[in-house]
């Protein structure tokens, strides 16, 4: 493993010009360093003007997602030692407007996330005196996988449908909607269906499957969307052939 490695970092400073450029930095390459550590080294020792998001450094906060050598990844979980001899090309997540350098505008995602109501909805809240809503381990397992989503938006960066149609609600928001639909304590399925059954919801997805492949938390958004399509189709068929719900 070489002592030093070159990082080619995308720069965009709206005050300096309308184009994205690339700047090369040669930094020490230590075995235990992630790409994020490399960026932090640049920020602290080489070029304090470089802008990027990060927080936890342990794959929990989801804020350091970037394109590393063309692949959307959490930079805190991508080691420089796994990038060969370099250079390592670091770009902001694709499919989002860029605010500055490696920072993207996430307001579109935040709006879509809220639209699917990713929280437990109850028709009638029971009083606190009646205690908590209980759940068996089996009921918990039903949605656990989807609850691992950390909103890093790496799936949006990999999704060509979102790139082609920015109205698409997108993989993570639908996976999180499914997380609450599968929760035994939740009663908000119909409310979410109103949003997700629109064309820009589940039906926009053409099952490329890349969202699932790139997810750093092994969530399966593609699976969530296909399952949602299946249940929506079954609901439609049921209401068509049995308008009184089969009673």
């Amino acid at each position: 493993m070489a002592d030093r490695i070159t990082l080619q970092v995308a720069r965009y400073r709206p005050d300096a010009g309308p184009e994205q450029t690339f700047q090369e930095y040669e930094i020490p390459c230590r075995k235990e360093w992630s790409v994020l550590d490399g960026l932090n080294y640049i920020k602290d020792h080489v070029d304090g003007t470089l802008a990027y998001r990060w927080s936890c450094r342990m794959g929990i906060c989801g804020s350091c997602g970037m394109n590393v050598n063309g692949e959307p990844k959490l930079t805190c979980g991508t080691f420089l030692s796994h990038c060969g001899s370099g250079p390592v090309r670091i770009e902001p997540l694709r499919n989002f407007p860029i605010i500055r350098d490696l920072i993207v505008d996430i307001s579109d995602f935040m709006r879509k996330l809220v639209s699917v109501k990713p929280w437990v909805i109850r028709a009638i809240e029971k009083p606190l005196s009646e205690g908590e809503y209980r759940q068996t381990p089996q009921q918990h397992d039903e949605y656990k996988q989807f609850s691992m989503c950390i909103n890093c938006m790496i799936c949006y960066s990999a999704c060509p449908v979102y790139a082609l149609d920015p109205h698409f609600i997108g993989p993570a928001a639908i996976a999180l909607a499914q997380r609450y639909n599968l929760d035994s304590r939740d009663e908000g399925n119909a409310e979410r269906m109103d949003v997700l059954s629109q064309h820009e919801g589940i039906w926009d997805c053409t099952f490329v499957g890349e969202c699932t492949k790139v997810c750093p938390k092994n969530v399966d958004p593609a699976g969530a969307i296909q399952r949602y399509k299946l249940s929506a189709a079954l609901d439609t068929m049921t209401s068509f052939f049995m308008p009184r719900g089969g009673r």
Partner: protein
Amino acid sequence: MSTSPAQQGRNPRLLQPTISMGWWLQRGTYFAFMMRELSCVFVAWFVLYLILLVRSVSRGEASYQHFLERSAAADIVLLNVISLAFVVYHTVTFFNAAPQAMVALVGTRVPGALIGASHYAAWVAVSAFVAWVLLGG
């Protein structure tokens, strides 16, 4: 490229994303996806081919013989060979995707591998039945 509601009142200081016409050539998985989408055209061709076969049979022996002669022509054979490759690809990718979309419960959840394997088993069974019928039972 279309714009999202967020982009319609776009901030001029933001660098907007773009996508090239050749986006599907940039990653192997995107290319595989586009080939899967293209395979639908060949599925449609086989459906049409079957309808033409049934129509020729319904019109009598002469029509059927003409259909067989036309089907033996090099261009149709080539088209059918390419179509077969695409239909097999379509089938395999569809079966591989099935466990992601299906959640089967038989007491407990059926493992995805078993769902995929059951699709292939059904494929083999139906193919064996068709072969048995074609080879004279």
